């Protein structure tokens, strides 16, 4: 079931949109090396299909449930220097949920993400043929991200988890992204470690409570992607990618005491098709991210399918 916090956890796997060595990732919005700026817009349609309990057992939602979340994501990336780029992503969220007699039709801004990336390379790292060992060196990005709780969270005036559009916590993430393209193949690895900042809480699900301090557990995300690029007659490209992601959050703390109820895990797979025009300045993407509605594929988290349609425009 929804917990629409699920949305806040959700991620799109790295999408290498056929723009050499950095077509963009919906989760971190990385633009290509030779570009000054990039605008990205995407629509996520997330459909909920039961959940995994704390032991990893899958449970269906109650009969008649229909839980959805739609997100419109705006992103803008800007080159600060030859090796530095910064970006901002702002989602707008619609919750459309029917659950055991409860209806939720809320909307609002989601949590905003600010990113700063350093590119540990100068030249293009995509090659057609491996001629020497240097051709095997991947493009490496180091990133820092700050999630700003601009969304509506459980600590606001909401009735339940269906109504939220954000997590309610600041979070700082460190990210390493390795990407290698030897045409027509591409592989990438994204590792991200996040730490939430402790916050005061005096209200939960609309009800004022005895104040306490809460901190969510550390967050770890790893995504492995394998892609294949086809060149069309006019030199535009279509890239097909498959990805596997593993997301984990440790137990949090309330007033310094362990709070195991927020500990979670999620595994998912994703398939992406991306079209890039000849100039590689327009990229159209479609991603289907799927979580297995079976025991053992997650813990304490909703099972969802996410369909994402997006477009990126690179400004050179």
């Amino acid at each position: 079931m929804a917990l629409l916090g699920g949305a806040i956890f959700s991620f799109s796997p790295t999408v290498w949109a056929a723009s050499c060595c950095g077509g963009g990732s919906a989760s971190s919005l990385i633009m290509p090396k030779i570009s000054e700026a990039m605008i990205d817009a995407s629509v996520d349609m997330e459909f909920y299909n039961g959940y995994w309990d704390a032991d990893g057992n899958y449970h269906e939602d109650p009969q008649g449930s229909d839980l959805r979340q739609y997100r419109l994501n705006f992103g803008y990336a800007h080159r600060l220097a030859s090796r530095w780029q910064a970006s901002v992503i702002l989602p707008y969220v619609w919750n459309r949920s029917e659950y055991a007699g409860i209806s939720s039709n809320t909307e609002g801004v989601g949590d905003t993400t600010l990113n700063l990336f350093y590119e540990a390379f100068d030249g293009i790292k995509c090659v057609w043929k491996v001629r020497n060992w240097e051709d095997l060196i991947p493009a490496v990005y180091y990133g820092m991200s700050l999630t700003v709780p601009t969304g509506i969270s459980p600590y606001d005036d909401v009735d339940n988890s269906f109504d939220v559009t954000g997590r309610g916590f600041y979070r700082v993430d460190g990210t390493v992204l390795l990407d290698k393209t030897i045409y027509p193949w591409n592989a990438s690895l994204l590792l991200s470690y996040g730490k939430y900042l402790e916050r005061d809480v005096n209200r939960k699900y609309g009800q004022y409570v005895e104040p306490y301090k809460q901190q969510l557990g550390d967050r770890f995300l790893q995504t492995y992607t394998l892609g294949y690029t086809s060149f069309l007659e006019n030199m535009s490209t279509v890239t097909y990618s498959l990805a596997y992601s593993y997301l984990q959050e440790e137990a949090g703390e309330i007033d310094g005491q362990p709070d195991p109820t927020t500990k979670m895990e999620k595994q998912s797979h994703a398939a992406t098709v991306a079209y890039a025009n000849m100039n590689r300045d327009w990229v159209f993407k479609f991603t289907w991210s799927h979580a297995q509605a079976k025991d053992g594929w997650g813990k304490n988290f909703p099972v969802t399918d996410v369909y994402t349609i997006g477009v990126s425009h690179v400004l050179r």
Partner: protein
Amino acid sequence: MYYARTIGIALVFILGLAGCGGGLDTDVFDDMNPSGEDKRPAVVAGSEGTQVGQVSPDFTLQDTLSVSHTLSNELAGTSAVVIYFTMWCPICDSHMSNMRTDIIPDFPNATFYLVDYVSGSISVSRSEQLSNGYSNLDVLVDTDLTLYNRYQASMGTTIVIDSTGVVRMNEDYNNSRLRAVLSAL
């Protein structure tokens, strides 16, 4: 110039959209600068009510086996009655699972109930209880939301009522606070 214009258009669009949906209300800023101020309503200790320090009004609900439970009867012979409002969601499950494994075994003299306020009937509630794996906990069925409204509850609200009928806790599930409240009785 071109970039600045593009950024400007995007920002105007985003802020306009947010404003239309009411997204940029005070809640947004509450989270960006959260408060630790105690805003619970002041109550007169010992008066009848559902806030901490007040004496809980009596109630009767049926469980999923159609057995009636009355608070005043349940309080006799127990250190406390604990009720948890569930909608059988993942967050509720994590709370209930934690309560079952970490709290209930340590407080054998307390009586624990889940209150199902979403199923609307005893049969549906029984089905949810079994499918979610909570056959070993008593589930009270709040078919007409009487208890839910009386306690101004929401998803995950946890109430502790001591043997004298006084409300000792009324807030979202918090395992360390629940343990502390029960230990103090």
